[in-house]
């Protein structure tokens, strides 16, 4: 599987994502933000970090990086794109995903383990999870407060575009389990066609027990499996 990880100036989780894939047996490539083509890739990952310092707004400047034009094109043609944290922010800024990520409601940056409920498992990103399963993936952001207007929210929910929701330990979505004030406890969403996923939690941080857990593994492995299936049976 050909995985490209886009490295923007100021990205800082790109190596972690790279290492995570390697732990799972893949050999991803780093893509410099100034490249202009992502042809030939099976998956593009926009990693976490502070692209361009996250100055102005998170993800705002990165979206104009040379490579993004082709990433957008790639996504429109059905290419798989995964945006993690800053990557999610970039995806909303460039319009591949709806809404915006605002400052956390209590204004603090938060780095902590977080319970998530998997809302959909019919996606290439999540097929190895159980529907409704509660998993633990850490968050690490100052601006993860998912915001969208009422109409947009309604649409998201009706189309089942919410993939991960913040929940408490018991799997219930409530205020307590919502670390940043996101509407409807949204932690990750997918586009209508199911090929672009943006999420604030960091799955790449939980693929090895020794550094905190393995709940992120199945997300990455789902993608590999989906790709294998596609190779086997065609698109």
């Amino acid at each position, binding site marked *: 599987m050909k995985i490209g990880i886009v490295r923007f100036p100021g990205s800082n989780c790109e190596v972690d994502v790279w290492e995570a894939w390697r732990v799972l047996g893949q050999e991803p490539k780093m893509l410099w933000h100034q490249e202009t083509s992502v042809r030939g890739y099976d998956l593009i990952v926009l990693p976490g970090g502070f692209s361009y310092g996250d100055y*102005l*707004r998170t993800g*705002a*400047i990165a979206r*104009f990086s040379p490579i993004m034009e082709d990433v957008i094109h790639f996504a429109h043609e059905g290419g798989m794109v995964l945006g993690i944290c800053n990557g999610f922010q970039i995806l*909303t*800024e460039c319009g591949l995903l*709806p*809404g*915006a990520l*605002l*400052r*956390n*409601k*209590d*204004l603090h940056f938060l780095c902590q383990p977080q319970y998530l409920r998997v809302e959909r498992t019919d996606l290439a990103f999540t097929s190895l999870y159980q529907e409704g399963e509660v998993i633990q993936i850490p968050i690490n952001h100052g601006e993860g*407060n998912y*915001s*969208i*207007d009422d109409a947009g929210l309604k649409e998201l929910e009706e189309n089942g575009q919410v993939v991960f929701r913040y929940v408490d330990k018991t799997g219930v979505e409530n205020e307590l389990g919502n670390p940043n*004030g996101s509407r409807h406890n949204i932690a990750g969403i997918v586009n209508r066609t199911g090929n672009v996923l943006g999420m604030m939690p960091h799955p790449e941080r939980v693929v090895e027990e020794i550094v905190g857990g393995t709940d992120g593994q199945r997300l990455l492995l789902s993608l590999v499996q989906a790709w294998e299936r596609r190779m086997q049976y065609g698109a």
Partner: protein
Amino acid sequence: MLKAKVTVTLKKSILDPQGSAVEKALKSMGYKVDEVRIGKFMEVTLPEAARENATEMMHEICHKLLSNPVIEDYSFELEDKE
């Protein structure tokens, strides 16, 4: 030279936690204020060459980069720089 003074504010319907935090702080310090909203203020200095279609260009810049229309409004004024 020209200077564009841009203000970018969160749309009314969007919660502004930073503003509310400042509001609370001011109230607890004993100041009588009703509400605080926080946005951005930017000064963009333009070269002489940009004068002709400065307004148009600033709208474009504001729309594309300086604000995110999903959550923010912008406005600007152009002034001749001393």
